[in-house]
């Protein structure tokens, strides 16, 4: 039997562990990575010539980051690693890629495709968030981790989720000035959230310690806030964040940069283009591709792992990547792969169940504040790409009868800009649902379009 053709998309924790399984089984996989180097976003590697240690860059996760980087370095000779390459479309049994620096395209046939596309920050519009100086929380972290820069000289972080506290603490530790950390979630998680978080007690304690360290450093940390607006000027950018605290009092924090983020949203475009079925996940209020306990999607030969399928974090991604690759080998009737799958499946599934319990706890402790979207003033920009307001989006419901997000997109252009709905899509769905007085799952989800990111007109088919 000839070796199966397996393509892995992504070289974060899930993609690296998937590739490792394939190498162990003697299958030479193609690994497509948009990054310049492996590691994904969470374990992003700094450029050559930078000298900070793993401990400085990744803190408590340094050992894991190092293990993943060394693990990948050891695979390099046995895989076809294509860095700086975008997988921009999936058709039946084929994936289409473009190498960003050269513009060269390729079409790759696959017997199994393992998509480990990761996630981006999940954003809630705040009036004024389209001004210069507003960044996602992930952006604030990348500036520090990959470029040793702070996004400003006085930073306010606002949103919810573990990354909010982690990035703020990393900024303080690196010597940046953090003016405030404003969390829309209440200070206490409630019993259901706490029960979930107790699936990983050590991680829960580390989170509490981060929050305590911020307070010790003199940073104002507020819970239960409602964002009001971000002040600034069209030329100068942001200058102040105004929010109501848990008691309803308006608080204002001068700053020259803002980091915003409400946990994560899965990058599901390739799964969508591969015609995988999706289901609405009520706890996080987002649509996710259906997968079975091993990572099989509803499309034969397409496997999904990591934060692009379930937001389990880096440790969960490593387990999911390994399991999905084992499932793929099993399904391809690969003898050694079948043996490994049988040996490891139960233990990997058990790990994923623990991670999922914690994920549910996070979703309850740091909820997506959907009511904020519904309450946005009409003049608030929802689509940053094209400066389309909440009022224009609501008009598509009230005047044109849109009760579905793709129709609302056609009328208002929200979701049609250059980010292709990544940063407005979830809030837009909430706004449309509230305006139409229907549950958010009834308004559907933005359909993914190829190319999943803008391509150059000059992209050349490579023979």
């Amino acid at each position, binding site marked *: 039997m000839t070796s199966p053709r397996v393509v892995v998309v992504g070289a974060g924790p899930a993609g690296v562990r998937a590739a490792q399984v394939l190498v162990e089984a003697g299958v030479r996989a193609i690994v497509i990575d948009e990054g*310049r180097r492996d590691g994904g976003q969470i374990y992003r590697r700094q450029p050559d010539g930078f000298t900070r240690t793993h401990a400085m860059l990744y803190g408590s996760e340094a050992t894991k980051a190092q293990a993943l980087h060394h693990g990948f370095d050891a695979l390099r000779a046995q895989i076809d690693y294509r860095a700086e390459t975008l997988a921009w479309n999936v058709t039946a049994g084929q994936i289409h890629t473009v190498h960003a620096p050269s513009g060269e395209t390729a079409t790759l046939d696959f017997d199994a495709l393992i998509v480990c596309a990761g996630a*981006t920050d999940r954003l809630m519009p705040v009036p004024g968030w389209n*001004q210069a100086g507003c960044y996602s929380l992930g952006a604030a972290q990348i500036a*520090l981790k990959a*470029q040793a820069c702070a996004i400003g000289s*006085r930073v306010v972080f606002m949103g919810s989720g573990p990354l909010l506290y982690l990035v703020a603490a990393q900024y303080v530790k690196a010597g940046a000035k953090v003016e405030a950390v404003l969390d829309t979630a209440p200070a206490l998680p409630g019993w259901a959230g706490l029960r979930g978080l107790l699936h990983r007690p050590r991680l829960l304690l580390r989170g509490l310690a981060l929050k305590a360290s911020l307070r010790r450093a003199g940073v104002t940390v507020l819970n239960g806030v409602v964002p009001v607006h971000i002040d600034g000027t069209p030329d100068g*950018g942001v200058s102040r964040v105004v929010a109501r605290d848990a008691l309803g009092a308006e608080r204002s924090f001068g700053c020259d940069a803002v980091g915003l983020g409400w946990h994560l949203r899965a990058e599901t475009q390739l799964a969508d283009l591969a015609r995988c079925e999706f289901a609405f996940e009520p706890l996080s209020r987002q649509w996710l591709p259906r997968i079975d306990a091993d990572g099989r999607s509803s499309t034969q030969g397409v496997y999904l792992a990591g934060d692009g399928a379930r937001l389990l974090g880096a440790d969960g991604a490593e387990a999911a990547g390994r399991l999905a690759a084992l499932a793929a080998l099993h399904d391809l009737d690969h003898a050694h792969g079948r043996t490994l799958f049988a040996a490891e499946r139960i233990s990997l599934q058990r790990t994923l169940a623990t991670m999922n319990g914690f994920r549910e706890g996070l979703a309850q402790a740091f909820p997506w504040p959907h009511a904020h979207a519904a309450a946005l003033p009409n003049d608030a920009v929802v689509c940053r790409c094209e400066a389309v307001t909440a009022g224009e989006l609501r008009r598509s419901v009230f005047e044109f009868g849109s009760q579905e997000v793709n129709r609302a997109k056609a009328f208002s252009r929200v979701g049609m800009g250059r980010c292709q709905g990544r940063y407005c899509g979830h809030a837009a769905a909430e706004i449309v649902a509230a305006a139409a007085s229907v549950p958010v799952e009834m308004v559907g989800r933005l359909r993914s379009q190829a190319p999943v990111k803008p391509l150059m007109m000059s992209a050349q088919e490579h023979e």
Partner: protein
Amino acid sequence: MSNPLPEHGSGGRFVRLAETERPTLRLVIDGAPATALEGDTLLVALLTHGRRVRSSEFGDGTRAGFCLMGACQDCWVWDEAGQRLRACSTVVTDGMTVRTTPPASLWPVTPEVAARERGEVFR
């Protein structure tokens, strides 16, 4: 509780916190000479010199990038040849020339533009 507004317009937006011992590279931003450090992305080069990357085409002011991970496409700039560059994922090379507005002269010249350039009225 209200804090004074920060000063605008002077210096850069991003603040270097470490890794400042890298070799210096030269580049040109909108015709003005600038420097960067080896390993900098174009976005960092732009934002350690100024407070903006570009202006929104939709009239709502300046932009300075948003996601830094190649997802939002907010940080597009151009090289002299008119090639679009995503600043957050482009590494600075010595001698690089960038512009933060699209080079209009590279758009195909339509008949009415050609007429205007000749000082004629297009019919």
